[in-house]
């Protein structure tokens, strides 16, 4: 797993771990904490084409619903089935076992680095 320092981020509080042409995507610890205890995760299907910035899924806590945006454009190659059955993993390990999907990248928009993301959340 790539360290949080090396990950890229979006303003929608997602992290992107790009390895060659594949990006692993999850939500940040900040986002997970703001949502509260996550009780339901809906992810796109494997093979779905996704466009950067579009809604591809959602995360529900007891209190609220958060939308999941595709941080990059490409094709979904894998989704994390474990979070569907145990959504609490997103809270307990958002940067690890709580990853959400993998996308074969065709296009990557400009993403935030760790420092820029921390600036955004006021945690710098």
């Amino acid at each position, binding site marked *: 797993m790539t360290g949080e320092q090396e990950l890229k981020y979006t303003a929608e509080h997602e992290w992107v771990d790009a390895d060659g042409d594949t990006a692993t995507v999850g939500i940040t610890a900040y986002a997970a904490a703001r949502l*509260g205890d996550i009780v339901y995760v809906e992810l796109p299907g494997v093979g779905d084409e996704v466009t950067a910035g579009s809604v591809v899924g*959602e995360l529900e806590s*007891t209190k609220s619903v958060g939308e999941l945006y595709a941080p990059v454009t490409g094709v979904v190659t894998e989704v994390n089935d474990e979070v569907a059955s145990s959504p609490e993993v997103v809270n307990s390990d958002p940067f690890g076992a709580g990853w959400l999907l993998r996308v074969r990248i065709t296009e990557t928009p400009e993403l935030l680095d760790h420092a820029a993301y921390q600036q955004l959340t006021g945690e710098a």
Partner: protein
Amino acid sequence: MTDPEHGDPERRRSPLHEVHAAEGATFTDFAGWSMPLKYGSELAEHAAVRTAAGLFDLSHMGEIVVLGPEAGEALDAALLGEISAVETGRAKYTLMLNGEGGVVDDLVVYRTGPDRFLVVANASNRETVAAELRSRAVGFQTEVQDESEDIGLLALQGPLALDVLTEVGGFSADQDERTEQRFVELLTALRNYRFLAAWYRGHPILVARTGYTGEIGYELFLAPALLPQLWRAIRETGAGSGVVPVGLAARDTLRLEAGMPLYGNELTPLTRPQQAGLGRLVRGEKTADYVGRDAVEGFDPAGQRILVGLTCEGRRAGRHGYPVRAGDDVVGEVTSGALSPSLGHPIAMAYVDPAAVAADLAIDVRGTALPARVVPLPFYKRPERKA
């Protein structure tokens, strides 16, 4: 943006704010206050109230005292129900109505003496309720005092609440601190919707067996300056038995499971009590005239939406504002909904056309029809426990 670690500095803060911060609270804006949303996991807080006990800071609630020889009569004229018939030491759940029979607020009224009542209002309605009580009390020998600044409120709710409260220490039945054992006896014998006027470390306290969670529990009214001391005492006493602080997030799922209405969701100025399942509060035999009487006693339920409980399968929940459908027709609207932490499936309260209650219903969850079944409220009942 509000900093969840510290809360919005523009908002009012509880006397326990620093205590909450030290407990790791995340704060949320609520009716002008910055109050704890949760301390860690709201699901764990919810579970603790169901299995052990939870401690709540309710400093945001409004406490309005109505006193004078005609205080009871003034409240009869101002509120639903015969408040003047409530005995000292007892509490009553009631509503303040507007002239059209709609709900201004839901209230618990505690009779603290022959000529003295404590009216507890929702934070968002405190000023409205105080102003309405003042104007509705004109002509009666009574006085209305908004004492919200001088009365603090904690709640301890859950199956272990009594055990913890009897072990905290510092309580006494009267000003003489040697009456601690007497206090414990009185508290143990205290029944639902009754309260004790007692003492805590030499200061007056009301200990009421009331709450908003569906569990046995207590609400404690005392001077705001004493809140941190009592909070810490309860936390220390309860730490070994799983008592945790509980924020507003779990408070909402607890009351929803218990089928208790929330002002702003299930109760609004357009809601008549009968629609909300509160028709029992409308007593035709009440002799005193009261605001909203004609509208509420003449209410014709035909065709008027009624509050129902809905359950669904899976984990996706209908939420406030989502449409309820029967086929293609919108026949209702969800007022509160969540995945029930205790039951493990989604629950919701919704207003539904009476003709559609027996139909095959579905909640429209952002475009997906989630089949829903009408069930009696409450969703959750506390298990009978042996004493």
